[in-house]
Structure formats: structure tokens, C-alpha cells
């Protein structure tokens, strides 16, 4: 019984940490897909860049973890604005196939450029002294960094949800996801809204990528390696939804961890089967619009 409980707690904890990272990275993708209808497979590139910016600032310039993470958020958000204005915006009206190909192209280019700039080795993530080791909660101990990661993610998520619910910008985003034409006729500048949302989503991805560098190692293949996971979160959660991906990320994070912990011989088999089941049951995702 004790072993069972301990396994349960282990799975829940690691699954939660994994889920938080997946969610923070993917939520922007969900909103941009819902808002602009853009199938952006290259979303992981922003997370990867976030990781690179953060680790470079920390390792090469000795900038503290927190600042480096924030800088990654800002830098990638700004960079994504350029990309959105220059390239993505041209393809909002294009078909899915074009969008898929375009974003695969972006992934390919990023793999080569990142490799050229930072080399093939994964980036070293030196966790600050105070976040190393493990925390003793009495009944058992947990790795400090992952505990920190879960808490910070919850903070970010709370801020995001409040922002979407309470601010004017959030209201505009919600209106545009619901009905773009209606929003436009109400005088919302959707083009500007797209750019800002895209930047916010990319920035969040960078934040997640940086913070999660410990779990999803920052390397040139990053955008490709984890693509499927980000897409799973978004498609199972439901496009355009903010909360759907949260549930999906929890399912995925905890499910994946449980599979590895309990039935490593089956790998991710159950996970993919479950995704297929959910998508067949609800093609628009758990929280998608029918």
C-alpha cells in the first residue's frame, strides 16, 4: 500500500511538472490557432529560442536565472512580431497544407541555424544554487526546481487567465476567437490583435522553453522532437481554448509519466491511442467549439 501511494505521488508530481511546461509552451499555440486559424507547427521554435536565449545569457554573461528568463520572454516576443508581420501574416488566408509546409520550413531552417550558432550539444542549464537539490515536505521530499517550476507556472497561468477574463485585450481576444467577423465589425483591429497575441503566445512559449530546459533539453532538434506533444495538447484541448489545453496538458503530462513509470515496456503506446480515441470522440478537442 505504501509503495502504491509512493508511486502515485511520484507520478502525480512529475506529471504535474511536465504538464505545466507543456501548457505554458502550448497555450499560445492554441490561441493563435483558434484566433487566426493558422496551423503553426513551428511553435516549438519559439520555445527553443527562449531556452537558448536564457541559457546563453546565464552561461556566457552570468546573468541571473530570473532576469535571463524574463529577457528570453521579451526577446522572443519581439522576434516573433517581426516574423508574424513579415511572413505569417501573408498566410492567414492560405490553406492548411500551405501553412503546414511553411511552418515545417521554418522548423528546418531553425534546426540548421541554431546548430550553426550554438552547436549540436544540448545547452547546459545551471539551476541557481537555492533551487538545487530537494525539498523535504516531511512525508517525502521533492526536487526543489520542479517544485519551483510548478508554483511559478501556476502563477503565470493564473495571471494569464485573469488577464484574458478581466482585461480589455483579453475580451477582444475572446471576441475574435468566437467570431472574427463580428469582432471586426465591432471595430476591433484584428490585425493588431493577431500580432499582439502571436507575440504573447511566442513569449510564453519562450518562457516555458527556458524554464523547462531542465526537463525538455534545449537542443537544435527541439522544435521537431517535441512538436507532437505541443500539437497533442492543442488538438486534444481544443483550438482557441485557454482551459482546454490545460486539461489536455495535465492528461498528457500525467499520462505520459504514468506510462513510463508503470509500463515502460509499452512506451507511449497508450498515450497515442488515448489521443486518437479522444479526437475521434470529440474531433474539435475536449473544449473546442463544435
Amino acid at each position, binding site marked *: 500500500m505504501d*509503495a502504491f501511494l*509512493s*508511486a502515485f505521488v*511520484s*507520478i502525480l508530481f*512529475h506529471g504535474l511538472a*511536465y504538464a505545466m511546461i507543456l501548457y505554458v509552451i502550448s497555450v499560445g499555440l492554441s490561441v493563435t490557432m483558434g484566433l487566426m486559424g493558422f496551423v503553426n507547427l513551428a511553435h516549438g521554435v519559439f520555445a527553443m529560442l527562449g531556452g537558448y536565449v536564457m541559457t546563453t545569457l546565464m552561461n556566457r554573461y552570468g546573468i541571473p536565472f530570473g532576469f535571463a528568463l524574463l529577457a528570453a520572454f521579451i526577446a522572443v516576443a519581439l522576434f516573433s512580431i517581426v516574423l508574424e508581420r513579415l511572413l505569417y501574416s501573408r498566410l492567414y488566408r492560405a490553406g492548411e497544407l500551405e501553412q503546414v509546409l511553411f511552418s515545417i520550413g521554418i522548423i528546418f531552417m531553425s534546426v540548421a541555424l541554431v*546548430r550553426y550558432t550554438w*552547436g*549540436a*550539444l*544540448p545547452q*547546459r542549464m*545551471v539551476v541557481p544554487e537555492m533551487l*538545487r*537539490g*530537494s525539498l523535504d515536505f516531511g512525508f517525502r*521530499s521533492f*526536487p*526543489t*526546481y*520542479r517544485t519551483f517550476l510548478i508554483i511559478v507556472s501556476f502563477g503565470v497561468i493564473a495571471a494569464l487567465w485573469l488577464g484574458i477574463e478581466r482585461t480589455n485585450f483579453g475580451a477582444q481576444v475572446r471576441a475574435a476567437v468566437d467570431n472574427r467577423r463580428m469582432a471586426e465589425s465591432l471595430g476591433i483591429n484584428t490585425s493588431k490583435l493577431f500580432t499582439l497575441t502571436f507575440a504573447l503566445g511566442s513569449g510564453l512559449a519562450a518562457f516555458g522553453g527556458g524554464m523547462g530546459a*531542465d*526537463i*525538455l*533539453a534545449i*537542443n*537544435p*532538434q527541439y522544435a521537431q*522532437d517535441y512538436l507532437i506533444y505541443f500539437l497533442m495538447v492543442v488538438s486534444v484541448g481544443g483550438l482557441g481554448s485557454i482551459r482546454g489545453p490545460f486539461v489536455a496538458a495535465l492528461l498528457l503530462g500525467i499520462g505520459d*509519466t504514468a506510462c*513510463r*513509470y508503470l509500463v*515502460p*515496456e509499452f*512506451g*507511449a503506446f497508450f498515450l497515442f491511442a488515448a489521443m486518437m480515441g479522444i479526437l475521434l470522440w470529440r474531433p474539435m478537442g475536449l473544449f473546442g467549439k463544435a
Partner: protein
Amino acid sequence: MKFAKFAAIALAATILPFASAMAQTIKIGFITSYTGQNASVGVMMDKTVKLWMKEHEKDLPAGVKVEILTRDDTGPNPETAKRLATELVTRDKVDFLAGVIWTPNAAAIAPIAAEAKTPFVIMNAGTSAIIPSGGAPYTVRVSFTLWQSSLPLGQWAAKNNLKKVYSLVSDFGPGIDAETAFKKGFTDGGGNLVEAVRMPLATQDFAPFMQKAKDAKPDAVFVFIPAGVQATGVMKAYSDLGLAKEGIKLIGPGDITTDEELPNMGDVALGAITMFHYSAAATRPANQAFLKMWQRDYGANDWPAFEAAATWDGMMAIFDTIKAQGGKVNGEKSYSLLKGWKTDNSPRGPIMIDPENGDIIQNEYLRRVEKVNGVLGNVEIETFQTAVKDPWKLLNPKK
């Protein structure tokens, strides 16, 4: 100044074709992974080849040139590897095939080498069965087998009071070799292998596996993953989950504390015990000289690991073979020269290619991660066994 250099290059370019037409050019087809999983290892092997050429091209007999044809097999991708090897022997007519990180790739290339009668020097892939007990025609290995390190490690663990060990290996040929070999050495010595888990090859986050290992409360965790990026992930999980604090040791073949990744791992790696044939921190003169050259060319923070050592030795073997034939190489002759080739001058100590089957014979060192001059290194504590032949072949003489 610039113009002079340009003129010299232009001149060389005009003359060179004629010069090389007269000289004997020996081609080495070098296959490794420049992209995909573990591209970093491919890059390191490539650096080794360049370093070797720079240092030793002058040692070739007069008029003999060596040309390296590099090919990218893009990771554990045997079809590609096989095609590249076929093209190298049929189209480019190479005299040697060399390199190869991944076991499945090496296994796919070996039959090509045999059919084309072109010697194939494996510089990394470490599954025993690539070279069966009777040898694989035209294939030799200068790297290692997992049995060579994991069997003695199991024996050591049994003798050193590690009663319960939990095993975590990557689910592919070498991982299974490591697990089987360790289990044999360990359980024959009276140890208890509590659980043997095989992790998917592409695993990145090892925390769930490590957590389960921790929950099983063993004396040590035995780990094998392909050297390179994953080693850091393993160490991270080991550290974060506080296994060390619970007194659970981390042991394994040298892949888990591979030299080029050690600086990435941080102090948590301190004390990890591994059994292996090469360490960049080894003090023997041949290694010190090798290390000095390496860091001279690639920077003081760049460490060659066992893949570099094997590539280095492999180049040495090929060059010795060329020299022995006076520059006119022939596949059959090269293969017979490679079998039984030996040197005392390898960075890893004395080595020899088994004349019976073409696999490597080398020493196994027990190492512990310690700080040397402020840098983490695999310090060799003792030469655990000398002249180790691949134990798998001794145990499976018919395979």
C-alpha cells in the same frame, strides 16, 4: 599578402590534379551522424579524424595520399547507412570503411564490407553481436563492447557490498547487452538485480524512471544510455531526485559520465563509479599527449571522449595498414593486417585487435568522478582487468 595567398591557392589548384594523378590516393569512407540524435558524437569523431590527418598525414609513405570521404547517416538509420556504404564501395571505390556510431547502422554495413571485400573499421558501435564469435568478414572493431565493461562492473559491484541493484538501460542492442552483461557478472557474484527496466531510446526526461528506481530503494542504480546528451539528463534526474542522499550509488559503463558531457553535469556527478576503457583524465603519457593536441586545436574546455579515442586508434590502425603495404592497398591484405594489429601507444593503454574475430582487446579501468584541478574527470582508480576480450563471444562461442 592576401594576393600572394590567393595566387598560391590558384597555383596549387592548377597543379594539384596532376600531382594527385601521379600519387597513390587511398580513400577512406567515413560514416557517422552529423545530424539527428547524438550529432555531437559525430562532430567529435569528425574532429578526431581532422586532428589525426593534421598530425600524421606526413607519416605516410612518399607519394601516398589519404582522402577522407565523410557521409552523414543521420542517426540510428540503417537503411541510409547501408546505402551510403554501398555507394562508397561501388561509386567512390573506397579502400576502407570507417566510423559509425550506431549499432544498427554498423550491423547493416558489415555485410556490404564483406561482399565488397573492403575492410570496415567500427569506431564506436558497441553491441557484441555485430561481430559474431567467428568474426565478421572484413569487419574489425577498435572501440569496445558493452560486455567488456558491464560484466566486470557487475563482478565489482557484487564484491563491493552492493547487494541490491536496479538496472535502467536504453531499449536497443547495446542497452540490452549492458543489462545482460551486468546481470551476469552481478548475479554470478551473488548480487540481487531487483528490477531491470528498458527505457525508450529517445527518452529525454529520465526523472520518472529514476524516481521509480529510487522508490525501489536499491544500493545502486546501474544505468546505460547512449553516451552524449542523454548522459546529462540521467545525471540531472539522479541529482534532482536526491538518490545520492539516500545512499543510492550510480554505476554504469563509461557512457553515463562521458568525458565531453562531464562539465555539463556539475558536482552531482562526483563519486559516480564507472567501468570503462578510456578516460580523458587518464594520466598515461599517450593520453596526455593526445589531450594536449586536442585542447590546443579545439580549446581548453573541449574534452575528447571515448569515441574520440576509438576514432584516433582506428585511424592509427588504418594508417599502419597502409604503411605496411607501402601505399598499395588491397582489401584482403588490409583485413588480414588489421586483425592482430596492436599498439601500446593508444590514449587508452595497450590495445589489440583480436586476430581470431577482429574485435577489440583492451584494459578495463575502474573509475570514479573526481575533481582534478577544478574540473570533473573520470579518474582511473585501478586497472580492473587487462587485455579483456569480448566476454560475450567467450560465453556464446557458437553465435
